[in-house]
């Protein structure tokens, strides 16, 4: 019995609970769905399909760490999806240029969000909610509400559909992005400052931190990465639709908050977020395979998980007091 305690301590259930749940879910679904779930193909599908979610979610990590919400990320992503496709399909723009335009649009959206929150002093929740509606309207207007299914350059879709070492290329993009963000948020001094801004902006300002600048830059980051998620979406799926970004909003928030209960409980962090993304993905995918006729399952899971994650995070905060 003595050792059980030690082992439990080592396993550190609190910090890694998500990881154990992930393993348990994988084992469970492999047993009940050995032919569909426990296949290499399925692993690839989950990994690749979540790459888009991962990029937009990692972008969201930054403003949340700085104490702000960015609800416009899904709108930004939609706009980027539509823009990058529209430029190629309607105007035969070089794909690289189209991608650059889309990313630039993301930077601009982020800058406008930053301006609205920092200068106009609009609460970030409200400001970005308004912005997301504006972006949806823009995307719709650009293509008159019509989906784009052709005219997207093969060189772009090749980048999204390539396989390296038997793995979909987007998985590598996500890992690279996660490493960069991990460095910025956890190792570099800038990450500490961003968290200080998020923890108590007034105190950070009195310490001499340029709070407005960090807040502004965090919106630019989330805007840019949301646009990048849009580019990735087009490169993987090869189509565009003025509604395509919206389903990514809730999973992003669910993963950020669930992620904040993992690895470094109580704070938003990159690897915890990635863990949460795949935890949610495996759960949803497994249930989908078990009951393929119920497409509402994934919305249900994500909604419940968002609430549960925020509740767990709130419980952790209460205990600290």
């Amino acid at each position, binding site marked *: 019995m003595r050792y059980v305690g030690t082992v439990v301590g080592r396993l550190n259930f609190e910090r890694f609970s998500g990881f154990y749940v992930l393993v348990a879910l994988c084992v469970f679904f492999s047993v009940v769905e050995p032919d569909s779930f426990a296949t290499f193909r399925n692993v690839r599908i989950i990994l690749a399909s979540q790459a888009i979610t991962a990029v937009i979610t990692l972008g969201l990590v930054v403003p949340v760490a700085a104490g702000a919400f960015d609800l416009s990320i899904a709108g930004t992503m939609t706009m980027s999806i539509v823009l990058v496709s529209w430029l190629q399909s309607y105007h035969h723009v070089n794909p690289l240029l189209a991608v650059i335009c889309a990313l630039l649009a993301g930077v601009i959206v982020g800058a406008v969000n930053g301006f609205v929150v920092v200068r106009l002093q609009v609460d970030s929740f409200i400001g970005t909610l308004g912005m997301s509606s504006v972006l949806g309207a823009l995307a719709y207007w650009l293509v008159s509400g019509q989906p784009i299914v052709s005219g997207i350059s093969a060189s772009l879709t090749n980048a999204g559909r390539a396989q390296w070492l038997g793995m979909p290329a987007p998985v590598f993009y996500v890992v690279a992005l996660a490493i960069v963000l991990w460095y910025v948020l956890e190792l*570099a*001094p800038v990450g500490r400052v961003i968290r*200080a801004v*998020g*923890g*108590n902006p007034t105190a950070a300002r*009195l310490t001499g931190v340029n709070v407005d600048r960090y807040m502004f830059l965090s919106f630019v980051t989330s805007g840019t990465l949301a646009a990048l998620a849009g580019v990735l979406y087009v490169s993987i799926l090869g189509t565009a639709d003025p509604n395509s970004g919206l389903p990514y909003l809730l999973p992003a928030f669910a993963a950020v908050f669930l992620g904040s209960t993992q690895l470094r409980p109580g704070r938003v962090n990159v690897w915890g977020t990635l863990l949460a993304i795949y935890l949610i993905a495996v759960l949803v995918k497994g249930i989908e395979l078990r009951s393929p006729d119920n497409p509402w399952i994934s919305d249900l899971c994500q909604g419940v998980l968002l609430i549960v994650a925020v509740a767990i995070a709130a419980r952790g905060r209460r205990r*600290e007091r």
Partner: protein
Amino acid sequence: MPTAMTPALPATTVALHLENVTKRFGGVTALQDVTLTVARGEIHGLVGENGSGKSTLVKIIGGYLEPDDGSARGWVWGRPLSFPVDVRHQPIAVIHQDLALVDNLSAVENIGFPLNFEQRAWTPVHWGHERRAAEALLDRIGVQIDVLAPVGWLSPAERAAVAVARSMRTLDKLAGASEERLFVLDEPTSYLSGAEAARVGSIIREVAARGASVVIVSHHLAEINEWCDSVTVLRSGKLVCRRQTEGLTERDLVRLMLGRNLAEFYPPKPKRDPGVVALETQGLSGRVAEGVDLVLREGEVVGVSGLIGMGQNELPYLIVGAQRRRAGKITGPGGRNIRHIRDARRQGVVLVPGDRQQLAFDRTASATENVTLPILRRFVRRGIVRRRRERTHMLKLMETFTVHPPLPDQPVTAFSGGNQQKLLLARWLQTEPKVLLLDEPTNGVDARARADILQFILERAATGAAVAIFSTDLEQLAAVCHRVVVLRRGVVTAEIAGELVTEEALYRAVQGAAI
């Protein structure tokens, strides 16, 4: 049952009597065999240092805590009291410092809703009746206010009155016409100006004049002496004495509380060595401050005081550029102007804010992360914050600033008020500032930590920093300052320097300035 053997106390003379009250938290004894007696119609003071157990005693009276080991006994107006105290059915009202008012509701609503407006749940409220009831209650304690305005708009004393009126209504229902009731006010005058505190005093006297009893827990010993008929002194969880306040001086009270003279709690003033001008303000004006010219010299400790709200607590924020100025020019130690807070930082001018929770700390971060924020660059090697270096530095800092226990990874909120203030001071002193501006540096800090904190500040002055303490604590300013500037409605009205800096002189300057 012990109650059977003990004689009933005469209800006509004793409002509350508690005896053998003991309370332990883990291995720490918060209260040991404490007795508290409050007579009918009496205003009774409960005093002691931070950690003396007075808060625990109040929590026991309020029913939040239960005494240990069953030996505690109590009577309210002659009736035996069982523990934990069920305040809903006892004629006891405990009013905490924060008053627990809902700021955006009116006095009528705040007074009415704890009793659900004495209505059934779904029947309409008789607002006319409620309004008259609220006015009548406030009238009983001699307060006339706009009962329909949100209580957030009222002055602090008026808010206290609303809280008292709210309790009176609840007790009216319990005790009826009888005035056999007890009010316990926990720190009713913290953060109040002299005039507002005096109004609270008159409210309390109104309450007592009607036959009710009042217990006041306060750090403001002058008020205790002035308002109370008698006082109970606690030290380290034990009863020191209960006595009448007549003939008792503030100094006596301090000695009883601390078990020694107050002078021992202040470090000796360093010799004044007037250096060159480090910081100068010209015509500085803000919300209250009006054309303030202030000169701070190297090695000098300057106090800036006044009654609360006279501008002294706004000044440091104006100087560093954290608050908008209406007018004024500030020249820092580098000879350059200070326009915003980063100019100040660059020239070595730092501000230690007064409100730790709101203005100083990130509650979600560890002590280390909070403290090292201004000097984070020092620990960066090749673009990475080296945590081990940071931790080593922090451990050393905690030792220097006598923060016990030295646990750098704990959340900053896990530390006591005194330790938090030391951490805050450490955060800024490690930057080796040329000018140190302190807003109420010892608020909410016990006497021992206060001595340490003042010691650190004076040491810094001795090494050549210019120090300014913005505070309403005259005793403390008198003990450590070479020079004190007094403000009235934002304007400098007096300056006292050298041997003339005594508590009495400051008191006269501050009060005189208010007339």
